[in-house]
């Protein structure tokens, strides 16, 4: 009987391990947030000698911070939008039709995420050098789109495979043309996969450093700005304030996406 009553309870060892891993994963966030409030401005000591909200004000007044943040947001939004369109179309093509080189295209689409970012970065840089394309907002977007397309493509094709062909046939059979089938059957089925893929693409783009350093030229995105701050000992907690804001801002869409996909799964 004792065994039976314990069926739904995890063993103590497992619980302790799970909690330990969660702390290990999330404790650094806590540290980053804590030092956004420290009174110590050059070196971090534990525990912080005192707490202040002064750095928020300092961060607000930093003229170089805001363009970097907006550039990152703009790049992430546009790269995600591009990835959503191209990734969905590529997934639809690879799923629905059979053509020469289908497997090769599928492989080439996924390759950028497997390649080290530095390879992608150097490749893009040399291509831009060879073709004399000047560095701009769009060169960053192109760089980011290479791996953003992959995550959308992967999510979309997995959903296509799960949806099954007969639903598309049923729609056509009932008189829907290609556009109507896409609008009423494909898209609703795909929606949660696209939300998840889009979120991931956005997050990947937003904190990308390596490819960006090769395609940005003199522009600095937020991660590059933060990176550059680490070498400047003054006003250190400003970096932490920015990280604090970034975590808060990105948490909102992640939670939204989580709840949206959960609803879709229940129904």
């Amino acid at each position, binding site marked *: 009987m004792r065994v039976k009553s314990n069926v739904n309870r995890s063993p103590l060892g497992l619980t302790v391990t799970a909690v330990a891993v969660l702390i290990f994963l999330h404790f650094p966030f806590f540290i980053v947030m804590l030092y956004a409030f420290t009174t110590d401005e050059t070196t971090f000591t534990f525990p912080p000698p005192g707490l202040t909200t002064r750095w928020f004000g300092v961060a607000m007044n930093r003229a170089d911070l805001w363009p970097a943040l907006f550039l990152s947001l703009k790049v992430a939004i546009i790269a995600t939008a591009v990835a959503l369109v191209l990734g969905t179309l590529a997934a639809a093509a690879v799923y629905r039709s059979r053509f020469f080189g289908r497997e090769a295209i599928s492989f080439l689409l996924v390759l950028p995420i497997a390649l080290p970012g530095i390879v992608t970065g150097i490749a893009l840089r040399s291509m831009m050098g060879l073709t004399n394309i000047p560095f701009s907002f769009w060169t960053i977007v192109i760089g980011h789109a290479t791996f953003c397309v992959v995550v959308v493509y992967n999510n979309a094709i997995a959903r296509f495979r799960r949806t*099954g062909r007969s639903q598309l*046939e*049923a729609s056509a059979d*009932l008189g*829907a043309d290609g556009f109507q089938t896409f609008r*009423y059957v494909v898209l*609703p*089925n795909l929606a949660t996969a696209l939300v998840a893929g889009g979120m991931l693409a956005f997050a990947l783009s937003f904190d990308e450093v390596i490819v960006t350093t090769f395609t940005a030229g003199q522009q600095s995105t937020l991660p590059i700005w933060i990176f550059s701050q680490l070498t400047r000992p003054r006003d250190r907690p400003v970096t932490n304030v920015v990280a604090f804001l970034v975590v808060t801002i990105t948490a909102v869409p992640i939670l939204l996406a989580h709840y949206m996909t959960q609803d879709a799964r229940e129904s």
Partner: protein
Amino acid sequence: MTFAIEFNNVSRHFGEVRAVDDVSFTVRDGEFFTLLGPSGSGKTTCLRMIAGFEQPTAGRIVLYGRDVTTLPAYDREVNTVFQDYALFPHMTVGDNIGYGLMVRKVPKPERERQVAEMLKLVRLPGMERRKPSQLSGGQRQRVALARALINHPKVLLLDEPLGALDLKLRQQMQVELKAIQHEVGITFIFVTHDQEEALTMSDRIAVFDMGQIVQIGAPSDLYERPRTRFVAGFVGTSNILSGETAVTITGSAQPFSVRPEKIRLVDVATAVPAAHCAIEGQVQDVVYVGMHTRYTVALPSGEEMIVVQQNMDVTPQNGTAVRGKAVRLVWPRAANNVLEEAIG
């Protein structure tokens, strides 16, 4: 006379594989027409070509006098009940059934009225708000049927629609499908590999084997007069006799088939009546099925024959037919069905 469907020398090849090979047949208006065959025999491919999901490699398909061979699926006046039902999981039952009207821009109130009517037809009134995931297999099947019927197709295509249901429900749906067909009065094309289902439901059956039609006929034609060894074996059970054994029985080596229930088991001392065939053998195996008993009888030549007897005067219980007993098999000469094949 205009036929509901005409297949004129239709072929569908997938590379080297001839899924459908030069098939011709016609279906009459209002008929319950079944495509019967083992898996891979080409029956489903034929159905999919009528629906427009597959294009014939050669030949023409005509629907009520109109050549639809190259018409896309959404322009054909046929609708399909899919094997896996293919209901849209993100839509309610009502939206699933009304889908065909919705894409044709039928206004909502009219749509709702027709959906309610369809739900009544398939005996699921008031189920509009449910999601497909909340329905049982039998209910999903009815929703799929209602969804396909709401467009008032000229022909309804059914791709093994009862395959996923258990036996009881399947038999119930067989009766209901026939009743619904009577009510709506449209032509049904039904695909199945279940010969009993085909015999029960169809006006006529086309038997498929290896991409070709081997015989078309009413259920009783197919059962009583199978033309080939394949049909004799696939539709019901048959004893197929040829060579020496055939000579012993009929005096000719021409192969023929005889159904197990046409044969009577009698004592070896019993005389053979006029116009009857007879052969002696030994009971090898006895399977009691309740309504009847199935006997396997070994002939002197080593061949085996299946005999089915109602449990009346000859039964395993009263000792008249037990394993190892020598018996005489007697059947009317008229029960012999000559097969169309060369004497080999």
